[in-house]
């Protein structure tokens, strides 16, 4: 058969695609393998896991044990409360701060914004000791407040929403001025709905960030009544259930579930083009 230029191009394109997908499949497997392994072992009896075997009778027993023998429900509840409060606080405080940085004119606006940005440069670990001393002298240790108050706002959130608000066409602000909207009305009725996608992204990001907190709650909470999930897992590991690997795997799987829900629920909104048609 005669090889035409079109035929050659088609073969080259196809082999390129094959290579691309092969690479993606390998990478996906590398990333997902530990996760699958963990999920698999969570259904196995601990005796089998201890033997290093990956076979055995699969059952929900570990999950049943996790819910009945450990305080994991309490951990989940604690984390849920803390994460929801933190998420709501981030959305509110970051969005009003970002609004001010975009739509209000005041002296040193840009400079102040850079100060906010600069706080992102400081790693959290470096703030742990002064923060710990502060909350201790405020007598907040081992209390919900200690896991909420230091995280009420987020420099990243302000930065992200400032970028989002900057995308709002200036004509919309002028149109709102002609209609006589106050800043608060413009914020509520235009800026927030216009930036829905960014707000949802920030909400998911904040929720997961809070859900996955480990270092700070470990330092500041001492009782099962207040402990969030990630520290709860460690607690399970170090307590009497230390050798019950099946139970720990099942607990870990339970803890991951809300993360997955948030990601799947969030994904629906990460579609582009929702703001088309505003201008031009």
């Amino acid at each position, binding site marked *: 058969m005669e090889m035409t230029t079109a035929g050659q191009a088609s073969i080259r394109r196809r082999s390129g695609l094959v290579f691309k997908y092969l690479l993606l499949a390998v990478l996906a497997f590398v990333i997902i393998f530990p996760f699958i392994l963990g999920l698999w072992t969570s259904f196995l009896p601990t005796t089998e896991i201890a033997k290093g075997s990956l076979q055995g009778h699969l059952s929900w027993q570990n999950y049943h044990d996790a819910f009945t023998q450990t305080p994991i429900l309490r951990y989940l509840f604690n984390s849920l409360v803390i994460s929801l409060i933190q998420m709501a606080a981030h959305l509110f405080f970051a969005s009003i701060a970002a609004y001010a940085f975009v739509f209000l004119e005041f002296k040193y606006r840009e400079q102040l914004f850079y100060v906010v940005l600069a706080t992102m440069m400081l790693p959290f670990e470096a703030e742990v000791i002064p923060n710990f001393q502060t909350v201790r002298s405020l007598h907040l240790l081992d209390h919900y407040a200690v896991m909420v108050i230091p995280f009420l706002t987020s420099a990243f959130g302000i930065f992200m929403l400032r970028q989002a608000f900057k995308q709002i066409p200036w004509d919309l602000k002028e149109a709102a001025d002609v209609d006589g909207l106050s800043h608060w009305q413009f914020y509520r009725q235009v800026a927030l709905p216009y930036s829905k996608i960014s707000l949802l992204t920030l909400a998911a990001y904040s929720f997961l960030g809070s859900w996955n907190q480990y270092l700070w709650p470990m330092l500041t909470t001492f009782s099962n009544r207040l402990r969030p999930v990630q520290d709860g897992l460690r607690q399970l590991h170090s307590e009497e259930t230390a050798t019950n690997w099946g139970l720990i795997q099942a607990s870990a799987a339970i803890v991951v579930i809300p993360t997955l829900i948030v990601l799947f629920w969030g994904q629906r909104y990460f579609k582009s083009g*929702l*703001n088309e048609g505003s201008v031009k």
Partner: protein
Amino acid sequence: MGIELRGITKAYEHAAQPVLREVNAEIQDGELFVIVGPSGCGKSTLLRMIAGIIPITAGQLAIDGQVMNGVPPKDRKLSMVFQSYALYPFLDVAANVAFGLKARKMPVAEIKKRVTEALEMVNLTKYRARKPRELSGGQRQRVALARAIASDAKICLMDEPLSNLDAQLRVKMRAEIRELQRKLGLTLIYVTHDQTEAMTMADHVMVLNDQQVQQIDTPLDIYNHPANHFVAQFFGTPQINLLTVKAEQQATHELRVDSALKVVLKEPLALGTYTLGIRPNQLIATTVIGDTGNAQVINVETLGEQTIIEAILDSGVPVRIVQAGQVQIDIEQRIEVTAKGAAFIFDDHQQLIVEQGGITDDQLVTAK
């Protein structure tokens, strides 16, 4: 009473030059007033000062006899249509129209009635539940118009509302806006860079250039009596021919560009350098044989009902000539360019000093 602009000036602190200086105008109740000028002339700035979105640096703005400097936009009782339409993408068509009314705390029943009426007026009733992104450019434009209609304001400001539409739709919307304005008795201030829109829509036109008002007049008066070079060049397509001429004798009655192209004047002119402005349809091109004539054709555009001939005079100056009908003429053909007689004469400060044989108002032919 209308709107009065008295010495309106806009300057920004960091800039040495004001962006607008000493704008004076009186806009009558219920008229369509067009502000026209090239981009960067300050026309949108002027509109935003009238709206109250940006502050006036100096001068006075009065609406219905009341000084409005410093009054917030919503208390000026006006509506505004933006070049970009400024629709809220997350609201459907009806909610977009209702938005401003809700902000003004109008009763719900009244809002509903106004929205329905406004959408009917712009033929968008079918689309009331759609989001802006599901509409075409022309429909979006109409939503923006419906917003202005639904408002009870009698003053409407429009900032280049048609510049994002294609040519055919623009012609259609031009007529629709004009009709709406008459029907609703709106005082409409309309900003555009398009001289055709100014000519076809306006009751009065303000020509802005170089941060200043060049002329305020009716469209035909602007075309027939352009105050200066800029106005003459801005109005009329193809552009007017501006030819530099010297009056070499004292009190001469004849201005000569060359031996064939000349204009005879009724009034004598003093010695000096002038600019002769002749509209392309006031020039005649006659084909000649061989090397005679005074110009060479460089381009011909046949539009069907008229033919535009571009030629270069032997002195090197390009001229545009419009002839009615379809004229067969070749490129590089030698022609003789002569004037029919109508012309404008501008002095060396580019100001109009003499009109020669143009149409004056009292000579306007009434259509029967």
